[in-house]
């Protein structure tokens, strides 16, 4: 498998970013739920700090992913797919890009508004995007949760579609994102 995408498969770079970000998204959902379940401010600080560090990692990877997507075109969708299906697929993918930026940025802004600045695993601190503002923080909390719900739904649609293509349509759509050769 080459570094770059070919006309029939995704290359190393695209695959690494895809599965890496997918794994981090799962980690984020777990961390967010653990953090919300904590009682006491210190426990919340700890778990949200971890959630924020992973979130900013996703933001950086999403930027790389988007850069790569613009630079290296993906393999075209199979001709067996209808125009309508292809539209839905493209929309879902662009929705992902949108959410992968909007979620961390809304979180980062919320942290700034809460005057709990964001550190990347204690190594360095991100600048605050806005001045402290409790009302803004409350609003952004709702926005962030809504976007997370939208991401969750998009993930389910995306995974469902990939499995449908693989097991029902029996085409290469899922296979071309898998790192092992077809058997």
């Amino acid at each position: 498998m080459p570094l770059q995408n070919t006309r029939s498969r995704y290359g190393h770079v695209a695959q690494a970013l895809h599965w890496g970000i997918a794994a981090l998204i799962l980690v984020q959902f777990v961390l967010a739920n653990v953090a919300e379940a904590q009682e006491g401010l210190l426990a919340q600080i700890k778990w949200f700090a971890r959630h924020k560090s992973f979130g900013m990692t996703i933001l950086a990877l999403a930027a790389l992913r988007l850069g790569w997507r613009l630079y290296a075109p993906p393999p075209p969708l199979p001709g067996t797919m209808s125009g309508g299906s292809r539209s839905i697929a493209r929309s879902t993918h662009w929705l992902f890009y949108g959410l992968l930026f909007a979620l961390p940025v809304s979180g980062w802004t919320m942290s700034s508004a809460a005057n709990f600045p964001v550190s990347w695993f204690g190594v360095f601190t991100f600048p605050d995007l806005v001045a402290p503002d409790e009302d803004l923080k409350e609003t952004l909390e709702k926005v962030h949760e809504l976007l997370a719900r939208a991401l969750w739904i998009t993930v389910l649609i995306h995974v469902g579609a990939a499995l449908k293509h693989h097991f029902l349509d029996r085409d290469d759509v899922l296979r071309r994102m898998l790192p092992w050769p077809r058997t």
Partner: protein
Amino acid sequence: MAPNLISPAPGRAPGPPGGSPTRRAAALTLAWAGLLAGAPAQGAAPAWDVDPQASTIAFSAVQAGARFRGRFERFDADIRFAADDLEGSRAEVSVPLRSVDSRNSDRDDEVLGEAWFDVEDHPIAVFRAGTFERLGGGRFATDATLTIKGGTHPLRFEFTVKRDGDRAVLDGSAAIDRLAMELGTGEWTDTTWVGRTIDVEVHVEAAVGD
């Protein structure tokens, strides 16, 4: 001129040491008055009329690896300071701890609680300056004390003072060891999540009387 307790005025006939009993009583009274005048909160340097709108007591600390800032909205500063009369300079600042504002109500609520300030039992912190030292270059320092949460601890405070006519501007800082002062007990003693040092920055603008 210091009262003469040792020998009688020249030209007078020798009598009891210090002169007559009345004169001795007067001299002793004057001596004690002089000693008391040097007691704390009395200095001889001009009093500062602190402008509360233009003055701030701010602090910053590191939380989960990231530094955040807050301030105390209210404080009462009793300052007498003159660069040319460090002996006669004094400073005492009272801070009602409920006036803390770190722009986050969850954190402010926690900090007022028992693990931190414990404002129910200790609502006020008091900073008292000690002797003033001249560090040179317009900089001064004092080995002060901070009384907080029922304990009194040493606190070195370094500052600059700029004078412009009858206006004075003081900028100073101190580093507080929160563990030594029991600020953040129990689970909060883990300095991974809240740093050990709380940096305090003070900016005072005042009109200086004579």
